[in-house]
C-alpha cells in the first residue's frame, strides 16, 4: 500500500496539477477574501457586516466555502485525466488490484485537498488581517477562533477532493465529470435551496453541511429576506461535519467498488 501511495504521489507530482492547484488555492483564499473584505462589506447594498465584527469574519470565511467546488474539480480532473490519456490502462497493468489503486488515489487526493485547504486558509487569514489593518480596525474574532474556522474549511476541502475523485471515477469522461461537478456544486445545490419543501434536504447536501460546519447562514437568510419562502434550518456544525464525512465515506466506497468490474477499453 505504501508503494501505491508513493506511486500515486509520484504520478501527481510529475504533472503540473499540484502547482496549479496550490496557486489556485492561494488565489481563491487570498484574492477572493481580499476582494470581499476590502471592497465588499460596508459599501454593498444591503450593507454587510465589516471585518471588525464576528459576523463579518464569519461571512467572509463562509463565502470561501462557496469556492469548495475547486478542490472537487481538481480531484475530478486528475482521475478523469487517467481515462482521457489512457494511463488508467498502464496503472491497472502495473497494479491489477484496482481497489488498492483507488484507495491510494483517495489518500493522495484527500491529502492534496487538505494542502489546498491549508494554503487557502493561510491566504484567507492573510487577506483578513491585511484588510483589517488597512481599514484601521481589529478583526472581529480572536485569532484562535479564526484558526478553528479555517481549519474546518481546510478539512471540508479534503472532503470535496474525495467527492471529486469519486465523481471522476464514476463518470470517467472528463467533460461530463467536470460538468457534473460544476453543475451540481455551482448551480443545482443553490437551486435546490430555493424550492420550498425540497429545500429541507439542503442542510444534508454537501454545500448545506459545509455551511452548517462554518456556521454560514448568510445565503439562506439573505434569500429568505428577499423571497417569502421558508428556509431550511441549518444543522449544528458537528452534524454538518458528520454529514460531510458521511459523503466522503460513501464517495470513497463507491469510487473503489465501481471500477473493480468495469472493462478498460
Amino acid at each position, binding site marked *: 500500500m505504501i508503494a501505491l501511495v508513493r*506511486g500515486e504521489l*509520484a504520478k501527481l507530482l510529475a504533472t503540473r496539477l499540484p502547482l496549479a492547484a496550490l496557486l489556485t488555492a492561494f488565489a481563491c483564499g487570498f484574492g477572493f477574501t481580499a476582494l470581499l473584505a476590502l471592497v465588499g462589506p460596508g459599501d454593498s447594498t444591503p450593507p454587510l457586516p465589516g471585518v471588525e465584527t464576528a459576523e463579518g469574519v464569519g461571512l467572509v470565511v463562509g463565502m470561501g466555502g462557496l469556492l469548495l467546488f475547486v478542490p472537487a474539480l481538481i480531484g475530478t480532473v486528475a482521475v478523469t485525466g487517467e481515462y482521457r490519456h489512457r494511463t488508467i*490502462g498502464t496503472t491497472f497493468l502495473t497494479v491489477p488490484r484496482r481497489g488498492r489503486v483507488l484507495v491510494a488515489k483517495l489518500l493522495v487526493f484527500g491529502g492534496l485537498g487538505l494542502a489546498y485547504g491549508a494554503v487557502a486558509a493561510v491566504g484567507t487569514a492573510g487577506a483578513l488581517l491585511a484588510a483589517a489593518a488597512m481599514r484601521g480596525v481589529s478583526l472581529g474574532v480572536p485569532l484562535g477562533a479564526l484558526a478553528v474556522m479555517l481549519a474546518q474549511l481546510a478539512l471540508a476541502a479534503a472532503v470535496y477532493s474525495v467527492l471529486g475523485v469519486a465523481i471522476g471515477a464514476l463518470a470517467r469522461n472528463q467533460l461530463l465529470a467536470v460538468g457534473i461537478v460544476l453543475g451540481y456544486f455551482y448551480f443545482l445545490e443553490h437551486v435546490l435551496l430555493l424550492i420550498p419543501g425540497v429545500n429541507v434536504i439542503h442542510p444534508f447536501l454537501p454545500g448545506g453541511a459545509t455551511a452548517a460546519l462554518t456556521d454560514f447562514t448568510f445565503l439562506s437568510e439573505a434569500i429568505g429576506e428577499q423571497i417569502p419562502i421558508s428556509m431550511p434550518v441549518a444543522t449544528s456544525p458537528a452534524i454538518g461535519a458528520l454529514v460531510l464525512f458521511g459523503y466522503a465515506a460513501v464517495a470513497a466506497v463507491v469510487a473503489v467498488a465501481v471500477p473493480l468490474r468495469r472493462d478498460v477499453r
Partner: protein
Amino acid sequence: MNPTAIEVTGLSKRFGDVEAVREASFRAEPGRITGFLGPNGAGKSTTLAMLLGLTRPDTGTARIGGASYRELADASGTVGAVLDTAGAHPSMTGRGHLRAYAELGGHPIARVDEVAATTGIGDYLDRRIRGYSTGMRRRLALATALLGAPSVLVLDEPSNGLDPAGIVWLREFLRAFAARGGTVLLSSHVLTELQHGIDDLVLIDRGRVAWSGPLDDFTGSAANLEAAFLAHTMEVHP
C-alpha cells in the same frame, strides 16, 4: 528468468451483439516467441485485454504461470505489456512517467535509467511526452513494460509507428529476451512482419482461433505464409 507459460482456455467475450472472442484457446511457451496473427477486428486486442485483467471474460480462463493476471503477487514483475489502451500522460516527462510506474509497481528507481538505456530513449527522458514521436512513445511503452524485469512480454501491434531500424531492433530484442527463457506473445495483423520473428503462431479470425502451433507446421506444404494464411482462414469460413 523463471519459465512462465501463458495458457488461454475457452475464452469468450461478447460486446452487445458482437461476439468479439469465441472459445479461444492457445498457449505461449517460455523461450519462444508466439505470434498472434489476425485481421483487424479479429479479437486480438480483446483477447490480450482479457489475458491482462483489463477486460473480464464472459467464459473461460487466461493464466500466466498458473494464475490469472489479477491474482499475480507481482504482476508488473512477472508480465510486461504494451497495449494501445495503456498510455502515458502528455505533460509528464519520460523520466517522471517511468519513475511513477516504478514506484507504483514497487520496483527500484534505478530501473528507470536501465530500461531507458535498453530501449534507446535515454536522451529524451527529460522531455515532456507531449513532444515524443509515435516511435518514441512505443519505446517508452516498452520501457514501462520492462520496469519490473518481467519474464513474460505481451505486445499488441508493437511495431506500429516504429521505423525500419526500430523494427529490426525490436525483433532482435525479443529474440534475445526469448533466448534467456522469456515468453513473448506478440500480436500483429501484418503477415510479413511475423514471418521472420516468431517460433509459434496463433491464428485468430472473427473471434475464433483458427490454427495454433509451430510456424513451420503452419507453412507446411503451402508455398508461403500468405498462401497458408488464406487456406486456413478459408477453412473456418468456407
